[in-house]
């Protein structure tokens, strides 16, 4: 295997071996410490334009299978691992990770001390990185001159509406870069789903008369989206039960006058215990976050904190005081990771049923 380099914005260079494509790419470098599920991670649109460092030391050993896609298109900029394994033993696998990355023109690099690299990034914060053939001054200059996009959502989210038919409740999913896991969970619950582009306005949503609305996960910063998105959330949450996740959760918080702060380094893991405050239950979930809701700002908002990370005390869930609208920072459908909190989808559908009963008896409201 050919020699390749991973170079960082701060001047650090790591030498390794190439796998996947030989393209030269630049993106934000992030660390993912999940022990499993590299295919879900690689195909999740929240990693758009990012170079993913896996701290799990061996990547590639289950190949690629048809069941683990979180999106069919991939838009990551690279895979960094300690060891690339091309012996895949998963019975579903028809494709090796190496071939998959080659097909999609995504470069990989192995032989990197990824735990050391993770420490380095945690110490120095988020930064840009490139995968290159030669780590010379020219490569560093190019890296430093590259401006990364802040329009990730419009690059990965669907530009057109599409249906995911079912026989049950009418659910509208607002796509900020959704992973398939969300649609799978709705399908399992027989929902008749319509996916709408992220920039749809509230009138178009409400004209479709949804029973409930989901704000999906997605890449990037909620501050890079136009204010019209917040206006849309403010309008729909009054009328229809709402469930927001990930980027959707951050937007839901902003729409209700909470504020966010950026974490020093993006957090991608599933090993933090999260407490559901109302029951004291502890669960684990797939967490991907770059921002966190500011504790102080909750006091001026109309929100209640419902979930909290027990390691770093960050807010992991919110609920509106006046409407059946709630959100979680984490991904309840796993993909990859624990599915302890997957019944949040049931909670959402039960909110809808309860809301429907109330609507039908609204005339005798006191």
């Amino acid at each position: 295997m050919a020699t390749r380099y991973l170079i960082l914005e701060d001047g650090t260079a790591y030498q390794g071996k190439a796998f996947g494509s030989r393209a030269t790419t630049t993106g934000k470098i992030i660390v993912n410490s999940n022990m499993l599920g590299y295919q879900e991670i690689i195909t999740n649109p929240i990693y758009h334009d990012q170079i993913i460092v896996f701290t799990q030391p061996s990547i590639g050993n289950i190949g690629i299978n048809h069941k683990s896609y979180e999106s069919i298109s991939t838009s990551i900029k690279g895979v960094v691992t300690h060891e690339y394994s091309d012996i895949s033993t998963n019975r579903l696998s028809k494709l090796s990770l190496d071939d998959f990355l080659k097909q999609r023109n995504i470069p990989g690099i192995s032989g990197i001390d990824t735990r050391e690299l993770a420490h380095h990034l945690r110490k120095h914060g988020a930064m840009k990185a490139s995968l290159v053939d030669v780590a010379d001054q020219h490569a560093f200059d190019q890296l430093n001159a590259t401006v990364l996009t802040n329009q990730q959502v419009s690059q990965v989210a669907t530009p057109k509406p599409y249906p995911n038919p079912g026989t049950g409740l009418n659910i509208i999913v607002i796509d900020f870069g959704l992973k398939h896991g969300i649609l799978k969970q709705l399908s399992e619950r027989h929902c008749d789903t319509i996916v709408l582009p992220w920039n749809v306005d509230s009138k178009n949503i409400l004209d479709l008369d949804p029973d409930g609305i989901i704000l999906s996960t997605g890449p990037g910063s909620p501050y890079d989206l136009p204010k019209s998105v917040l206006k849309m959330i403010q309008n729909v949450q009054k009328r229809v039960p709402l469930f927001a996740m990930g980027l959707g959760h951050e937007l839901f918080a902003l729409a209700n006058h909470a504020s966010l702060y950026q974490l020093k380094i993006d957090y991608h893991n599933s090993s933090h215990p999260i407490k559901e405050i109302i029951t004291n239950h502890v669960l684990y979930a797939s967490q991907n976050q770059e921002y966190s809701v500011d504790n102080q700002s909750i006091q001026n908002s109309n929100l209640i904190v419902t979930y909290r990370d027990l390691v770093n005390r960050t807010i992991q869930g919110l609920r509106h005081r006046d409407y059946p609208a709630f959100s979680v920072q984490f991904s309840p459908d796993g993909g990859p990771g624990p599915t302890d909190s997957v019944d949040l989808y049931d909670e959402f559908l039960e909110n809808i049923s309860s809301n429907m009963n109330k609507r039908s008896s609204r005339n005798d409201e006191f």
Partner: protein
Amino acid sequence: MENIVINKMAMQRALTRITYEIIEKNKGVNNLVIIGIKTRGVFLAKRIANRLEKLENVKIPVASIDVTNYRDDIEHDKQSPKKVSVTNDNISVEKKNVILVDDVLYTGRTVRAALSAILELGRPRTIHLAVLVDRGHRELPIRADFVGKNIPSSQSEKIRVLMKEIDGKDLVEIIKN
């Protein structure tokens, strides 16, 4: 034949949702008093109060009420005075927002009896009704404000609510005769 209609997780979710709905409706938890109808309504009331306390960091007064003497479907000894037995003697319902809690809403006669009993204690600002199961077949014009689950049932069926505090497990089942 037995048929589980609410399992442990679903019961927890129902109580959680009812708790949030109480906050929505009452615009907070101020002035709230929760009264459970004996026996399982009391455990439900305590669980809801416990959830509200965790969320809002305030103590919510809980009382239990025994409405046997107010039932109109039970033959009473005409001589014995009607007596409301409220366990928490310090409780006052005057100008409060009362949440009345029971496990199953059926004919509405138990709730009617509980309303009479509460109104005899004072004049609450509002009374709302929360039930885990609404099985229909009302005989009085009564409806619940917060419902865990609507279970349309036939009158020949029995709905059995089990709670951990007294039965060792949480579930609701339909028993068909």
